[in-house]
């Protein structure tokens, strides 16, 4: 009886555990107040720098591929919000390679809960909050200037598409972090993928042919802002890929999760 109830673990069980781990993590973070302030300042600085780059760009050029200033800002704000969950909830991926290499990773395998969940839940990165606030500001500002109506439907759509957009970046980072199960010290894969995200804020229509394909289906940064944004920016001619993005996002996330777990199984076998 007891084992049966152990195996049936629903969403509530994991939500409860997550809350407990989160509170502990926040407590320990709060003891370094200067770090908290500086990290958030740093996050806002990077976003501000991206904003200044935009201003300088539009100081010299009227538009990018037919996208004017406010539409580009919309994309930028959208991408910043969509990049928040990966920053806040999945930041422990950056530590994976050290854990795997030193052998400390084995501790996650001995718990009677999902390894991926346990590992990821261990760190909540507060500095993502600064980015979220900055992104929201930009997003609302651009939304108002473009004149998108504020109704229940548009807001519900915004929430749905922001969440799906965030799944793509989570999937990219999961998969690139998991490479460390096969390649020692594969941090550079994560660094490169993390750099590609800088291009999420530009319309994917600037790429042609093969690169359009790569950034849509292989390294799906075009889904982080471009495809979901089209639902709001060109409501009359939304491409099919935009409507399908929630499904594709869930699929990518599932794939990255499977890949990550495959690595864990491999780690078990080598026993290193």
């Amino acid at each position, binding site marked *: 009886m007891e084992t049966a109830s152990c195996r049936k673990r629903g969403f509530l069980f994991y939500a409860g555990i997550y809350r407990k781990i989160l509170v502990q993590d926040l407590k320990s973070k709060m003891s370094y107040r200067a770090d908290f302030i500086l990290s958030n300042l*740093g996050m806002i600085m990077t976003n501000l720098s991206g904003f200044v780059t935009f201003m300088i760009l539009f100081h010299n050029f009227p538009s990018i591929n037919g996208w004017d200033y406010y539409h580009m800002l919309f994309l930028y704000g959208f991408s910043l919000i969509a990049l928040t969950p990966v920053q806040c909830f999945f930041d422990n991926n950056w530590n994976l390679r050290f854990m795997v290499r030193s052998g400390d990773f084995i501790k996650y395998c001995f718990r009677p809960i999902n390894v991926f969940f346990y590992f990821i839940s261990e760190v909540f990165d507060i500095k993502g909050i600064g980015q979220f606030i900055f992104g929201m500001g930009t997003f609302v500002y651009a939304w108002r200037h473009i004149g998108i109506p504020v109704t229940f439907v548009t807001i519900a759509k915004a929430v749905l598409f922001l969440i799906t957009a965030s799944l793509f970046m989570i999937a990219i980072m999961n998969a690139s972090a998991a490479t460390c199960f096969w390649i020692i010290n594969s941090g550079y894969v994560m660094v490169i993928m993390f750099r590609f995200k800088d291009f999420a804020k530009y319309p994917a229509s600037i790429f042609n042919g093969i690169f359009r394909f790569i950034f849509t289906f292989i390294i799906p940064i075009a889904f982080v802002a471009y495809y979901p944004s089209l639902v709001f920016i060109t409501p009359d001619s939304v491409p099919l890929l935009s409507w399908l993005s929630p499904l594709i996002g869930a699929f990518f996330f599932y794939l990255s999760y499977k890949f990550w777990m495959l690595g864990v199984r491999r780690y078990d076998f080598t026993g290193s």
Partner: protein
Amino acid sequence: MKDIRKLTALTKAGITESLQFRLGTVVTLFGNLIYLALVYFLWKSIYASAGSDTVNGMTFYDTMIYLILATAIFNFLEMFILWDMSRAIQSGEIIMHLLKPMRYRWYTFWSYSGSHVVSFFLTFIPTFLVVMIVTKGAVPVGWNLLAFICSLILALIVNFNLEMLVAPICLYTESTWGVNIVKETIVLLLSGASIPLAFFPEGIRRIVQYMPFRAIYDIPLTVLLKKNGSDTAGGLSSMILFQLAWAAVLIIAGNLFWNHAVRRITVNGG
């Protein structure tokens, strides 16, 4: 003579160490190539909407060369001094560095030199060659290459000393990530690595011109592209002097700050 051998030993050790992870270099190079394609498409569409071939004295190819080589220089200059230092302080290992019969700053510089040599040949040169091919030889080739190398070495020295100046802040704040990202953002934006300084509005550019960040990316690249009068002896020497002056200022400031901060380590007991 003995001193030089001591330093080249550190360089050699660094070279061996970075050659060990060759796969990383290959992947980084490959990533750079994709990044190059991204930059190409972005600026191509930006220039397509400009309506003219030259904007603020920069053609499409100039901008391309500038930004892609800025990325290559970024990889070339990349150091993790902030992280190394804060890790060494946390683990107490710093005391071993301080006890060595060589100044910590000097030791760090030379142990990094090996990885600079490797990344110069394995990522910078290949990226440079690809840029030459993609832009169909738009990089002027001549004495400017020699001037560029000199300027690049000075950029390395300025960058290193900037890192050394900022790194001890971690001692006071316990925030390695925060300090590092603030430094990196400021450097990348104000040095021209994110967007060429030529595009900055006049007023801002006049201020940025006097800051040290320009010495890291903008000056070497300007020298390479023969812009802003860097092809004349006067223009070139004023840029090199600018780099030298900032290197000197940063070395002195870094030393003063380090001497002050190092006392804090002893207080903590290491």
